[in-house]
C-alpha cells in the first residue's frame, strides 16, 4: 500500500521538474551543492505537500500509512540528490571530505521534513500538535543545517544527536495523529465533513451531501437566536483595510529583509536571487488577490497591491545592505572587486588594484599582455576568460612588484574607477569622505538594475498571459509559470558558479560596466546617475503597468477548462 502511494506521488513529472535542477546543480560544485541540498528541504515539502489528498483520506487505511508514504516519497526526492552530491563530493574533493557532514545531512534533512510537516498554515496531517510560528520553524530548520555547534562535536556524537532528534520527532509526529487511526467509513465521512469546506480544490457530490447535513443543523440553531437581531456594520478603519490588503503574505518579508541585508552586503548576485523570490512572492499574491478582479479597482491599484510588499521588503533590504556595506567594507567597495580568480598562477588576492571586470580590457585569446611602467618595470597582466572572451587587468600589480609600481598602478586604477588619481596611502587613510556620492550612486544603479530584472521577470510571466496569447498544450507550458522557476534555478547556479569558481560577481560587473559608461560621458558623481536610475525605475514600472493591464490572471480552473476543451 505504501509503495503504491509512493508511486503515485513520484509519478508526477512536475515533482521531478522541480527537484531535478536543484539536485543536478548540486553535483558539479559540491561546496555550493550543500546549499542546494539545504534548499531541497524547503522545496520537497511543496512538491510532496504534507496535506493528505482526499483520495488518500477516503481509502480504508491508517493515517499513519499516509504519513509514512509521504515521508518515504520525500525521502526519495531528497535522497537521490543527496546521493549524487555525496558521490560527486567524494570524486572531486576526496581529501576535503568530512564524512560526518555528509552523514549528518540525512537526519538533519529528515528533521527538516518532519518539522515542516508539523508547521501550521496548511493544517497538514491533522496534527494536533502544531506550532504557530511557521517562519521561526523554517529558520530553525535552516539553522539545523548550518548548525556549527553540531558539526563541531565529534562525528559520532553529531550524527547520533541528529539521528535521535529525528527519531524523537518522528515519534511525536506519529503520536500526534488522531486516535481513530483506522479510517472506517463513518470516520472518513466525519473527517471529510470537518475538513471538506476548507479545501477549494476538490468539490464533489459527497461534499455537497455532507455540507447539506451540516448546514441545515447550523442554520436551525442560528435562526432561532439571531433571526431578528439587527446587526450593525462593524467599523473597520482605512488603515486596517490597507493592512489587510497588503498583509496576507507579509510573513515572508522577514526572510527577505534579513536575507537581503545579509547578502547585499557581500554579494551582488543576490539581487538576481531576490528578483526570483520576489517574482514568486508577487505571483503568489496575484493568485491570492484573484477575488479582487470583480472589484472596481484599476489595474494600477491591483498591480500595487501585488508588488508593494515585495518592493518594500526589497527596498528595505537594499538600503540596509548598502548601508552595511558602506559602514563595514568601505575600502573593498571603492576600487577593487573581490579579486577575480585569474588564469595567472601567481595571484595576489588582496591586490589593491584588482578592479572590477568592467574596467578590464579585452585581449587576444590566451595571451598575457605585458604592462610597462614609464621607467621600464613590467608585469604580466592578470587575465581571465569568460564566455570565450579573454580580458586583462590593465592595472595589474603583483606582490613582487616595486612599491613605486604598485603606487603608479593604483593611481591609474583610481583615476579609472573613481575619476581622480589618488595615492594608496591617502586612499587607505580616509576612504569614504572623499567620494560621498559614490556608494549612493552604486546603490541606485544596482537598485535600478534589480528592479529592471524584476520587471523583466514579471513581464515574462505576464507575456504568456496576454490578451491574444494561446497556451500551447503539453510541454513546458503545462508548468505554467513554473518554467520561469526553472530558468532561474538554472540561471542562478550558473551565476553563482561564476561567483564561487571564478570569483566573478557578474551582477557587480554589470553595474560597474554601466557606471563606467556613464562616467565616461558624464561624471560618475553627478546627480545624473541617480536620475538615470530613477528613470529606469519609472520606465520599468510603466512597462509593468502596461503589461499588467493586458494580461489575465490565470486561474487553476482554467487548466480544467483547457482539459475539458481538449
Amino acid at each position, binding site marked *: 500500500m505504501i509503495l503504491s502511494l509512493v508511486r503515485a506521488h513520484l509519478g508526477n513529472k512536475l515533482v521531478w521538474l522541480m527537484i531535478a535542477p536543484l539536485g543536478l546543480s548540486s553535483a558539479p560544485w559540491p561546496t555550493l551543492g550543500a546549499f542546494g541540498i539545504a534548499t531541497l528541504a524547503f522545496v520537497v515539502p511543496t512538491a510532496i505537500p504534507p496535506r493528505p489528498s482526499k483520495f488518500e483520506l477516503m481509502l480504508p487505511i491508517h493515517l499513519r500509512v499516509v504519513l509514512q508514504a509521504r515521508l518515504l516519497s520525500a525521502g526519495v526526492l531528497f535522497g537521490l540528490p543527496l546521493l549524487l552530491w555525496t558521490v560527486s563530493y567524494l570524486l572531486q574533493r576526496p581529501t576535503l571530505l568530512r564524512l560526518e557532514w555528509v552523514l549528518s545531512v540525512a537526519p538533519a534533512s529528515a528533521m527538516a521534513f518532519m518539522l515542516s510537516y508539523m508547521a501550521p498554515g496548511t493544517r497538514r496531517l491533522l496534527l494536533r500538535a502544531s506550532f504557530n510560528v511557521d517562519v521561526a520553524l523554517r529558520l530553525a530548520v535552516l539553522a539545523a543545517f548550518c548548525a556549527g555547534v553540531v558539526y563541531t562535536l565529534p562525528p559520532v556524537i553529531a550524527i547520533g544527536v541528529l539521528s535521535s532528534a529525528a527519531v524523537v520527532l518522528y515519534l511525536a509526529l506519529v503520536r500526534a495523529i488522531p486516535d481513530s487511526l483506522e479510517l472506517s467509513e463513518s470516520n472518513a465521512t466525519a473527517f471529510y465533513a470537518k475538513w471538506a469546506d476548507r479545501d477549494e480544490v476538490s468539490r464533489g457530490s459527497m461534499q455537497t451531501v455532507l455540507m*447539506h447535513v451540516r448546514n441545515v443543523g447550523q442554520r436551525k440553531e442560528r435562526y432561532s437566536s439571531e433571526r431578528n437581531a439587527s*446587526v450593525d456594520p462593524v467599523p473597520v478603519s*482605512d488603515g486596517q483595510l490597507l493592512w489587510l490588503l497588503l498583509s496576507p503574505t507579509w510573513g515572508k518579508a522577514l526572510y527577505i529583509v534579513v536575507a537581503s541585508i545579509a547578502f547585499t552586503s557581500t554579494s551582488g548576485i543576490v539581487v538576481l536571487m531576490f528578483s526570483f523570490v520576489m517574482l514568486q512572492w508577487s505571483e503568489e499574491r496575484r493568485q491570492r488577490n484573484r477575488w479582487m478582479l470583480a472589484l472596481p479597482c484599476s489595474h494600477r491599484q491591483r498591480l500595487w497591491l501585488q508588488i508593494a510588499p515585495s518592493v518594500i521588503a526589497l527596498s528595505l533590504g537594499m538600503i540596509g545592505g548598502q548601508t552595511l556595506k558602506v559602514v563595514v567594507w568601505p575600502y573593498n567597495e571603492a576600487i577593487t572587486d573581490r579579486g577575480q580568480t585569474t588564469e595567472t598562477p601567481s595571484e595576489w588576492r588582496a591586490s589593491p588594484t584588482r578592479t572590477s571586470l568592467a574596467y578590464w580590457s579585452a585581449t587576444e585569446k590566451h595571451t598575457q599582455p605585458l604592462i610597462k611602467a614609464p621607467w621600464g618595470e613590467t608585469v604580466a597582466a592578470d587575465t581571465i576568460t569568460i564566455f570565450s572572451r579573454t580580458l586583462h587587468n590593465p592595472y595589474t600589480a603583483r606582490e613582487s612588484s616595486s612599491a613605486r609600481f604598485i603606487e603608479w598602478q593604483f593611481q591609474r586604477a583610481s583615476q579609472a574607477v573613481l575619476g581622480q588619481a589618488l595615492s594608496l596611502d591617502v586612499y587607505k587613510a580616509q576612504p569614504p569622505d572623499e567620494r560621498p556620492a559614490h556608494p549612493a550612486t552604486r546603490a541606485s544603479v544596482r537598485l535600478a538594475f534589480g528592479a529592471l530584472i524584476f520587471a523583466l521577470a514579471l513581464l515574462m510571466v505576464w507575456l504568456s498571459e496576454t490578451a491574444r496569447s494561446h497556451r500551447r498544450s503539453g510541454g513546458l507550458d503545462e508548468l505554467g509559470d513554473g518554467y520561469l522557476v526553472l530558468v532561474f534555478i538554472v540561471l542562478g547556479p550558473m551565476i553563482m558558479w561564476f561567483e564561487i569558481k571564478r570569483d566573478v560577481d557578474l551582477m557587480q560587473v554589470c553595474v560597474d560596466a554601466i557606471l563606467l559608461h556613464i562616467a565616461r560621458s558624464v561624471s560618475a558623481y553627478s546627480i545624473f546617475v541617480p536620475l538615470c536610475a530613477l528613470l529606469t525605475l519609472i520606465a520599468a514600472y510603466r512597462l509593468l503597468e502596461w503589461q499588467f493591464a493586458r494580461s489575465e490572471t490565470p486561474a487553476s480552473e482554467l487548466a480544467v*477548462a*483547457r482539459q475539458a476543451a481538449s
Partner: protein
Amino acid sequence: MTPLLSFRDVKRSYTKSVPVLDGVSFDIGEGEIVGLLGRNGAGKTTIVRLAIGMLFPHAGTVELFGLAPTTHPVEVKRRIGYVGETQELPGMWKASELIALHRKLYAEWDGALERDLIARFALDTGKRIGALSKGQAQQVALLCAVCHKPELLLLDEPAGGLDPVARREFLETTIQLLNREGTSVLFSSHHMSDVERLGGRVLLLNEGRIQVDRDLDALREQVCVATLPSRLASDHARLAELPGCMRVRQLLDQIHAVFEGTPAQVQDQLVQAYGEENRAHMQCRVVPLEELFIELLGGERLEAAA
C-alpha cells in the same frame, strides 16, 4: 439604447485551435434575466469572465454599458455584481472587513440591505471567511455583489456545490433583488429548476456557439420532442432537413428529434413527411427543460452491440 451587456462575434480559446467560444453574439437589455446553459466546458464560465474583464476576447468585442471591461475596469465594475462558483474570497479576512472594503469601494452601498442580508443569512461577520462554511462564504459573496445595487448581476454557477437550502436562499435573495431594483441578471447553472424559477431568456451553448437563444416559456411551449421508431426514419438527414428541426439523435431503436413548433403542428408536419399510416407511431410532446437540455445536447445510443 445601449444594451447592458453585448457580445459580438466573441472568440476565445485556451489552447490553440481548440476554441471554447467560437463566434458568440448576444445582448442583454435592461431588466432581462438570461440563463446560460451548456455542458461542462461549453464556455459558460468563460463568457462570465469575459464579461467582467478577467479574460480578454481573442476576437470580437465584449461591452458592458457600451464600455469594454478590460479597458474601463473601474467604470464597468462599479455597475455590476459578480458571484462565481469559486470566488476565492480571502480566507484570512473577517467577513466584516470584506464588507467594509466593499462599502468603501462602492458609493451607492445600501447599508440597510446589508443589514437585512446579514440578519437573513444569520452571518457571523466576526468570523474569518476561511472559517465559514461554503454556503455561508457564498452568501458573503452574494452580499458583497448585490449591496451596491448593481445594474447587472453576473452569477457563474453561484449555487454550484451548495446544499438545497443554501441554494434556495441564494435564489430568494436574487429574486428579491430583481423585485426591488429591476436588476438584469446573467447566470449560468446546471440546476434546471433554478433556471425555470428565474425564467427569462435561455442561451444554450454548444460547441462554442449559441445553439438556442429564446425565451424560456417559448422554449417550453413551442419546442417539442418527436419520437419515431428508427425503421421509419433511418435516414437522419431527411429528418434533420425538415423545417424547424433542431436536433436528431438515435436512442436504441428510437429516433428523438427536437422540433420548433407545438406538438400538433409538428405531428402534422411529420405525418406529411412520413405518411398518414404512421401517425400512431409518431409522438410529439413538450418536455421539461431538463429533458429538453438532454435531447439537445445528449449523446446518441446506437443499437446495443451485445
